[in-house]
């Protein structure tokens, strides 16, 4: 959802970053958001991901690399496994609602870079359509991105074209599935019933009296 900064005061330093980016990348910049005096988000298209990195590093002095990760916007279909096993499973909603700087696909790669001269941070986002989850690697741009991309590859299944050694970073070799996807079940919570389910059994008195009791106890 496009949230225009309602505060009249426009954060000119961050606005300048966005203008420079749109001027360099043309219409590849598809969305942006500023929280005044705090942070700035810019969303670019997937094809321009590598050029955006080079522009950001060389022209906008964001020389320090912070991190590269991904967000899966699908709401958690299993809930918190904190529902009593007896009552019916809540029907999971599957509408994708993305965060700042818009975007409509389920998977979004986010990277953050920092400039030590202008003391600004910049979040770069890119949408990845579900059918082809691939993105150009940032290895020539920032050398530190190597492990981040390997982690995103094994956790979300996003392949980075051009990455020389896209092996699993944390998970053993034959691990199937991508754990950080929202539809990957957290098995620890399936195995054990939730101790928080209230099972205070009602009074053993006669039925009508019991109904009266329970209403009275309920309010």
């Amino acid at each position, binding site marked *: 959802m496009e949230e225009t900064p309602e505060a009249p005061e426009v954060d000119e330093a961050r606005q300048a970053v966005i203008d420079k980016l749109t001027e360099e990348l043309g219409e590849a910049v598809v969305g942006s958001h500023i929280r005044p005096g705090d942070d700035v988000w810019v969303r670019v298209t997937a094809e321009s991901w590598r050029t955006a990195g080079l522009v950001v590093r060389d022209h906008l002095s964001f020389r320090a690399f912070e991190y590269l990760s991904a967000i899966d916007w699908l709401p958690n279909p299993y809930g918190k496994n*904190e529902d009593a096993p007896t009552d019916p499973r809540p029907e999971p909603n599957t509408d994708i609602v993305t965060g700042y700087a818009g975007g409509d696909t389920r998977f979004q790669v986010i990277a953050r870079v920092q400039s030590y001269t202008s003391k600004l941070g910049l979040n770069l986002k890119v949408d990845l359509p579900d059918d082809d989850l691939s993105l150009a690697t940032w290895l020539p741009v920032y050398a530190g991105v190597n492990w981040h991309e390997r982690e995103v590859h094994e956790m979300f299944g996003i392949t980075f074209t051009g990455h020389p050694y896209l092996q699993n970073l944390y998970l053993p070799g034959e691990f199937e599935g991508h754990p950080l996807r929202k539809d990957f079940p957290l098995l620890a919570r399936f195995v054990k019933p939730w*101790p*928080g389910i*209230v099972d205070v*059994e009602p*009074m053993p008195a006669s039925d009508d009296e019991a109904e009266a009791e329970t209403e009275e*106890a309920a309010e």
Partner: protein
Amino acid sequence: MPKKPPKPKLPGLLKGMGVTFNEMTQTIWPGEGAKRFMQPPSPAKGAATVQYPHEKETPPTRARGVIALKEDNCTVCMLCARSCPDWCIYIEGHKEKAPPRRPGGKERTVSALDRFDIDYALCMYCGICVEVCPFEALFWSPEFEYSEPRIADLLHDKERLGEWMETVPDFEAYEAGSSAKVKKVPR
């Protein structure tokens, strides 16, 4: 700009030996100045370590050693079991009649505890349950010597948690300038 480390006059190696030698004499004859050498050597006082089974170090009053349960404050609201991240509190209760508060008043139905177990093998001592309990039934006590040979015995039941109640220290007074008021432990 960074200052270069000062060139050690005496070669660093000897000054290093001086440090360890000084530590050794400090342990054997603790204290200040030359007169400490007059006293008899007492390494037990000089050493920083505590000989555990013989001497014991008292943990600070706020130390989170074990959770104590005051049973009659508990109204089986299950808030602690629900907010425990490790799912290690197991509660079962039932409803029963309780005498009316005022004479001639109506009988009240109160939920009473059947089972209140905390599995200390799973517990990570985060303290959310003590904090979230609205009826002041759970308290921290700095006791720590309850290790068991069998891991199953770490499941403390209601009586065991009740026993910890008397080891719960009173809350400390606060530092000057704090506007929080000191809570009281219901004995």
